[in-house]
């Protein structure tokens, strides 16, 4: 399996940090799942409330690697400036690059994404672009210098799973050297296992865990599903077939008719 800009991860589940019932539940979910990478974001800080400082203290306490995002950015300029600010605040060259192009589906603007990726790679960033399964966009992103691609499974927060399995399989086949992560749209651990069985190198999700009735147990379930899918891929699954094939040997069966 591939690394993430030179970083080898033992656990291929990455979790978002938003929407949890409480910071304590977020911390416990991350701990129980054995997650090594969490996504974080940036928002306006209030000098009086200092909410961001409290959140940062929690993340530091967890001792995790952070992947800052540019969520909510709709233009190249916004995304690039947000990435620059994130690099200074979080002290990492990693950025989950999001340039949103459509309000209802939160589908990435692939044209803006490629342009922003070029700018950020030239500035020394290690870009994790939130993209679709589009092969041409993937080619452009790789040309721009991205060594990780993060296609969606389904629209962010939808929980629909892998909407285009063919497209994701095709992406895996076309880019054997590139690290691929399914990001967004997963709802169940079985979706995560399926992504790993397709040969993906990781999955990134937030809502499916944070909005579960019991986020801690769901985080554990996702972690185990990711590991199961990873092992299954490594074990080289059998090819499906249309007709039945008896698994119990027929030879030597008693004649009882």
């Amino acid at each position, binding site marked *: 399996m591939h690394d993430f800009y030179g970083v080898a991860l033992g656990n291929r589940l990455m979790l978002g940090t938003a929407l949890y019932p409480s910071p304590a539940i977020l911390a416990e979910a991350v701990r129980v799942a054995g997650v090594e990478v969490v996504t974080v974001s940036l928002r306006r800080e209030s000098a009086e409330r200092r909410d961001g400082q409290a959140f940062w203290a929690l993340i530091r306490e967890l001792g995790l690697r952070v992947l800052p995002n540019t969520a909510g950015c709709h233009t190249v300029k916004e995304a690039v*400036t947000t990435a620059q600010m994130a690099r200074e605040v979080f002290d990492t060259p990693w950025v989950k690059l999001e340039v949103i192009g459509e309000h209802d589906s939160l589908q990435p603007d692939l044209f803006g994404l490629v342009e922003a990726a070029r700018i950020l790679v030239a500035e020394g960033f290690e870009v994790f672009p939130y993209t679709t399964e589009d092969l041409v966009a993937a080619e452009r992103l790789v040309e721009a210098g991205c060594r990780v691609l993060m296609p969606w499974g389904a629209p962010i927060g939808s929980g629909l799973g892998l909407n285009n399995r063919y497209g994701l399989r095709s992406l895996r086949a076309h880019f054997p050297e590139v690290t691929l992560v399914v990001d967004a749209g997963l709802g169940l651990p079985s979706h995560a296992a399926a992504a790993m069985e397709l040969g993906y190198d990781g999955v990134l999700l937030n809502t499916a865990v944070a909005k579960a009735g019991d986020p801690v147990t769901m985080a554990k379930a996702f972690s185990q599903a990711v590991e199961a899918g990873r092992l299954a891929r490594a074990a080289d699954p059998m090819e499906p077939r249309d007709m039945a094939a008896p698994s119990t040997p027929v030879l030597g069966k008693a004649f009882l008719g």
Partner: protein
Amino acid sequence: MRIVLNGKSREVAVARLDRVLEELGFHGTKVATAVNGQFVARSRRGETALGEGDRVEVIAPMQGG
């Protein structure tokens, strides 16, 4: 001088970005800054002079997916 801090109009007595942050209570915080849509690195706040009506963004870590 009036500036726009995180979308709200504020009166400040000083013009340098690092001093404005201090005056407005951000001393000791982990934040990044932008002025009129351009990122201003921490190391350059001391040489960044603000003018009337400048838009200053002060952002900090936040939960994200």
